[in-house]
């Protein structure tokens, strides 16, 4: 029985890890399709952000009740992984509850703790499911999530509920078999655990042979479920459980109000104003290809923006705080991130199929409309709210830059604005000579 378990388990484990690593390497490759941007230095502050924002989930505590429930799921997930480690070692070595031998009473305390977490995760997931499907919070019924994203969120919560149920049922069957002194179960006497023994009344009538089958089925489904979930992650919004960490480490450290500079434009203006500063043109007549100003596609964004896109878990706190979204405009910062990821995934599939990116006649502008970009007030509410340090604003601004500087695509009023600033040094058509006019009265 246990030998069979080993023979099947080891290849399954190896395959699951292989597939996961292969997919994660693709995600990494896609992120690195973005332009280079310097995020080095400040490692002290960055580690602090990693601890506070990712481990500590500081931003989540803007809503303490939800934060506690989320923290239970998160802690449950991480800590129960110690149990999963035992399951894996048991699977590989063909043992049963290997750790109980040398951990003794500590082991029972640990499993009791895991059961507390498992029940906590179970309850939190039920509440979260009801927030999405019964209470229908505004950010969860938004059209941003129509189709796959809404199902994705529900699948994750349901999976966690199933995994926790399997874990508790497995423990219940195991401890019942122990009390009956059945087979090798009788050799690992741990006694009842905190919560799972509540399931005993349901199982008391079962024969020991049936309980063994139940215990093994739960064991297998639990671990297979976890391995399947691992491979589901990179296709899901749930990838944030991994990428929240690098995203917090690479959190933007400058004031939110500061926009990214464009040295290429800065230099062009400088050379125009002070021609003596311009570098000499190359003798062979070749000139560097003109840079693209702003972003039309994912390649024009930085790797940091693309990491943001994969880190987004589509919670919608950004859109719930967005003044444009709140007043019925089409802009939704969450959708900006989802669209960026969708386009990036499409580009990735293109590269997988063709070896390198082959023009598909599309850009990010096929995913994000001009109207969305135009509605942003650059108020930073989305940036402030994001629990995993994403900036939708940076993408919006980069795309606005391309609209204006590449396509001369501006609303009439903005063209008037530009012309006023250029000619009158003010956004309105007033004479520069009247700039100190306010001193004359009063």
């Amino acid at each position: 029985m246990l030998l069979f378990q080993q023979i099947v388990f080891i290849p399954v484990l190896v395959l699951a890890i292989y597939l996961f690593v292969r997919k994660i390497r693709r995600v990494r490759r896609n992120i690195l399709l973005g332009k280079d941007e310097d995020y080095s230095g400040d490692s002290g502050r960055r580690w602090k952000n990693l601890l506070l924002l990712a481990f500590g989930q500081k931003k989540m505590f803007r809503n303490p009740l939800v934060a506690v429930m989320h923290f239970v799921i998160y802690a449950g997930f991480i800590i129960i992984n110690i149990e999963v480690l035992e399951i894996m070692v048991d699977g590989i070595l063909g043992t049963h509850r290997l750790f109980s031998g040398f951990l003794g009473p500590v082991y029972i305390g640990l499993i009791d703790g895991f059961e507390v977490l498992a029940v906590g995760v179970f309850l939190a997931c039920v509440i979260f499911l009801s927030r999405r499907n019964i209470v229908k919070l505004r950010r969860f019924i938004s059209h941003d999530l129509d189709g796959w994203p809404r199902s994705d969120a529900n699948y994750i919560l349901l999976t966690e509920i199933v995994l926790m149920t399997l874990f508790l049922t497995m423990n219940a069957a195991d401890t019942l078999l122990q009390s009956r002194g059945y087979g090798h179960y009788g050799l690992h006497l741990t006694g009842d655990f905190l919560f799972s023994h509540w399931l005993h009344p349901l199982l008391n009538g079962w024969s020991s042979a049936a309980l063994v089958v139940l215990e093994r089925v739960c064991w297998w489904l639990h671990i297979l479920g976890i391995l399947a979930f691992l491979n589901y992650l990179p296709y899901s919004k749930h990838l944030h459980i991994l990428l929240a960490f690098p995203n917090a480490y690479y959190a933007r450290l400058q004031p939110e109000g500061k926009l990214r500079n464009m040295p290429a434009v800065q230099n062009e203006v400088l050379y125009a104003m002070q021609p003596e500063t311009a570098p000499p043109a190359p003798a062979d007549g070749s000139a560097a290809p003109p840079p693209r100003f702003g972003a039309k596609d994912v390649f024009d964004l930085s790797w940091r923006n693309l990491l943001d896109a994969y880190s987004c878990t589509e919670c919608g706190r950004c859109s719930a705080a967005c003044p444009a979204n709140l007043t019925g405009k089409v802009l939704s910062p969450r959708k900006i991130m989802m669209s960026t990821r969708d386009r990036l995934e499409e580009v990735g599939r293109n590269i997988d199929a063709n070896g390198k990116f082959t023009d598909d006649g599309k850009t990010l502008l096929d995913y994000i409309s001009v109207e969305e970009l135009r509605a942003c007030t650059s108020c930073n509410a989305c940036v402030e709210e994001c629990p995993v340090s994403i900036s939708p604003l940076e993408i919006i601004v980069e795309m606005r830059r391309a609209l204006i500087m590449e396509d001369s695509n501006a609303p009439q009023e903005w063209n008037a604005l530009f012309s006023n600033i250029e000619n009158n040094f003010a956004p309105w058509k007033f004479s520069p000579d009247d700039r100190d006019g306010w001193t004359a009265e009063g």
Partner: protein
Amino acid sequence: MQVTTMAEWAARGETPEILFWVGCSGSYDQRAQKITRAFATILDKAGVRYAILGKEEACTGDPARRAGNEFLFQMMAYQNIQTLNNYGVKKIVTACPHCFNILGNEYPELGGRYEVIHHTTFLQQLIDEGKIRIKESGPFKGKRITYHDSCYLGRGNDIYEAPRKVLEALDAELVEMKRCRSKGLCCGAGGAQMFKEEEKGTTRINFERSHEAVGTGAGVIAAACPFCNTMLTDGVKQEEKEETVKVMDIAELIASSIA
């Protein structure tokens, strides 16, 4: 009123303590001009030796940059930095959070390095240092005031306390809107929205915000940005509350309460 320009100070061979960057709204918008005059009055009363650039000041380029026109922004920045550096300006105060943000955060990497202070912070300093004193029973004593956070001060630059500290000096009853500080709702003007029609929606952002502000029952909505001021004033009109609810800049509140 008598205000000395940087050129006049230089002609006298003297250097002022600080440059008052007025900004386009404060220079040209009739409502915002009152804020400018209020702040200049306070500077005079506090005996601050300050200058303005006068006709030499130009738009910082903020709306152009946020709209996406980086070329125009860089041209304006180049021009302003030349002017400021020629005068050897070290310290700037401004009543506009957009000018404050761009001068303080975005000019340094272009070669314009100055200590930039927003007027609410400056007012707090003047009060703390005893350079201005507030009347014992000023016009706003006991009055209900709500403060609207400007995005470019608050989230943009983490300035939440200074404006509130200044308002506390008025001995008024400060009430917060539900969406305040880092959760403050935008007035709708930023990102060059001030200069175009809003995109299609169910309501306007300034209506949404003004409705919330009026809902506090405050008689005064205190703003710290000339653009927020315009947007909220329009929003209060929409609520048909312009008789009972005034939108005022913090500088105006202080100017009318100085002992």
